[in-house]
């Protein structure tokens, strides 16, 4: 992988959330899903959002992904405040700046893997011929070139998540957001997926924010662990083991995996 593939960093934090709140009403009660979260994520960082279910970690991720809008506060990504963007601009932000993977893969069942991977390029109006070769390339990168014309239901969970990763990366986003990416996978397949995510983080320089409730997984891959409870930030610690490993030269890390 050449160095030109790396996402350029300009010194600003990739993500800067300030007093972020997301409240919504459910009947009579007001739910404070996110309640005053302030955090910064540096470009190229691999961060894990940890917390029990209902802690607000997925809500924070959705706000960063531009899928949802904050009730108050701001999320600044690449110097743009998502709260100020129009619906159209948010869609473009999701299309070009963010790649997402989900616990339930979220591939479109009626489409083949190649078509699924091509879909974001259709929205980005990429030329048809270029699209096909890029999709092939992306699927080859995750080892699915032989499964291109299969539908998701014909694949294992791990294969589906790999296809989802290929789709998330197809428009070369700077941010990879993963919501419990290994939640539906056995530990061996989960490791395989996580290694890929780490590879993208290290080789492409992508900023990764991963939501998980598994502390062990987070400790193994993330440079920083952020803890949430009841919509509030309750802990933010760097993970020296991973941070140190990342600091070593990439060639060494590559060589170790091969």
């Amino acid at each position, binding site marked *: 992988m050449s160095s030109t593939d790396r996402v350029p960093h300009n010194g600003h934090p990739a993500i800067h959330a300030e007093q972020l709140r997301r409240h919504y009403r459910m009947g009579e009660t007001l739910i404070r899903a996110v309640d005053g979260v302030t955090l910064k994520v540096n470009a190229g960082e691999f961060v894990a959002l940890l917390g029990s279910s209902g802690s607000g970690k997925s809500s924070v991720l959705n706000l960063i992904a531009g899928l*949802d809008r904050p009730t108050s506060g701001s999320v600044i990504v690449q110097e743009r405040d998502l709260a100020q963007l129009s619906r159209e601009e948010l*869609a473009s932000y*999701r299309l070009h700046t963010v790649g997402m993977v989900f616990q339930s893969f*979220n591939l479109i069942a009626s489409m083949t893997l190649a078509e699924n991977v091509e879909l974001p390029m259709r*929205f980005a109006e990429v030329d048809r011929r270029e699209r096909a070769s890029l999709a092939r390339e992306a699927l080859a990168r995750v080892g699915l070139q032989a499964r291109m014309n299969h539908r998701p239901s014909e694949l294992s969970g791990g294969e589906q998540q790999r296809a989802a990763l290929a789709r998330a990366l197809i428009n070369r986003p700077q941010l990879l957001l993963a919501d419990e990416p290994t939640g539906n996978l056995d530990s061996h397949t989960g490791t395989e997926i996580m290694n890929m995510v780490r590879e993208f983080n290290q080789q492409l320089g992508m900023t990764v924010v991963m939501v998980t409730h598994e502390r062990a997984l987070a400790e193994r891959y993330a440079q920083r662990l952020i803890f949430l409870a009841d919509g509030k930030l309750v802990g933010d610690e760097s993970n020296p083991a991973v941070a140190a490993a990342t600091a070593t030269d990439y060639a060494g890390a590559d060589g170790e995996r091969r």
Partner: protein
Amino acid sequence: MKLPDLTELALRNLRESLLRNSLTTIGISVGVASLVAMLSLGIGLQELASRRLMKSGLFDTVVVTSRRDLRNFGREEERSGLAPGESRILDEPTRQEIERLPNVLEAYPDIRFITELRYEDKPHLTMVAALPSSAKSNDAFEGVQGNFFSSELAPEAIIQKAFAEELLGRTPKPGIDETNVKELAAPLLGKDLTMRYAQRETAQTASSAAAPDKAAPGDQGLAAAAYSVVSRELKLKIVGVADLDPESMRGPTRARVFLPLALAETLHVMHPTDLREMSRAASDQPVYSSVSVRVKNPSQVQTVENAIKKMGYNTFSILDASRSIQQFFKVLDVFLGIFGSLALAVAFIGIVNTLVMAILERRREIGIMKAIGASDGDVKRLFFAEAGAMGILGGIVGVALGWAIGQVINIGTNIYLKSQSFPPEHFWSVPWWLVAFAVWFSFLVSLAAGLYPAGRAARLDPVQALRYE
């Protein structure tokens, strides 16, 4: 998203729920078919009526009469414009003047008189009219048995079938028009008719006497015309029997026996209006009670009529009659269209229902598309494309279906007509503009039906949609 991608995705989505989308499309087809069926029936009936009127041969004809004439058609022009005293008489120079007007093919005098015709020594009293040779190409003589006049001056006659029946002593059954003209013509063609008529013999003598009571002011001088009336006989050979009535629009003055125009002019038949017209004639130029003007194209009838009115004559054309007929058909078309559209309205609801169901079913898919970067517009356009595709498809199938229904009804009706010994008729017409209109209309209706579902799909909250299992 680009249009080819949009179309591709829309068609793929339609194929995914094949049964439901097919049923919806069939619903649209039935709606379009009923609309096409109704409208083509309306158009077909209108064409049939027009064809019938065209065959009367008077669609491109303007009848000109003098304002002084006793005959009037009860038209308002009688009261406006020139007073009767100032108006001009309709004579040969005028006829030539009219013939020189732009867009006029010919102007021929209307020679008609009631006289006695003897066939096998039995007298028959009927109206006789002169026909110009141009009438040969007239549609009115389409069904003629025998021939047209051999020459302009030939002592020949074409008789109308009702008169033929009279000559043969047959009485048509009332109500049913099933006369076989061929059968009627066989014993009559080539036979002689003896026409008895009163000839006016003009003697150009010195002035004054003729009709002093008619010397109104404004006359173009008082030329005297004295004449005597002589009884004559002329043998005519029956050369043709006409099925259709070439003068169907003339009402009470319509003729049943026709002579060549040039021959009729040489006869100088005494005419009731001669008494007063001749008294005012400037010369021995013939004076006519009416002149028929043939116009190049029915669309120019109005212009020619106006030009002749300016010259100071009354005019009448079938255009006035056909205008009200056209109006009737417009109203009929609207009514048929409304009934046809009812089925399309049901199809409209069907599309809305199908697409709303599709949103519920594809909620998650819409959420995924939004999560990976689809804009509200992309989602909206996708649903529009699906609705539009069903509309175009339904429209095409519907037109074919409507056409087929029309054919079946047309064939069925003609079988019935045949069993009642009526000639077959084509009263069903699907013009190309109707095909294009139906498909386009179906497309628009479908897009309109997609409006609400597409808007709803576009507004879908992706977070909610992705949570939904």
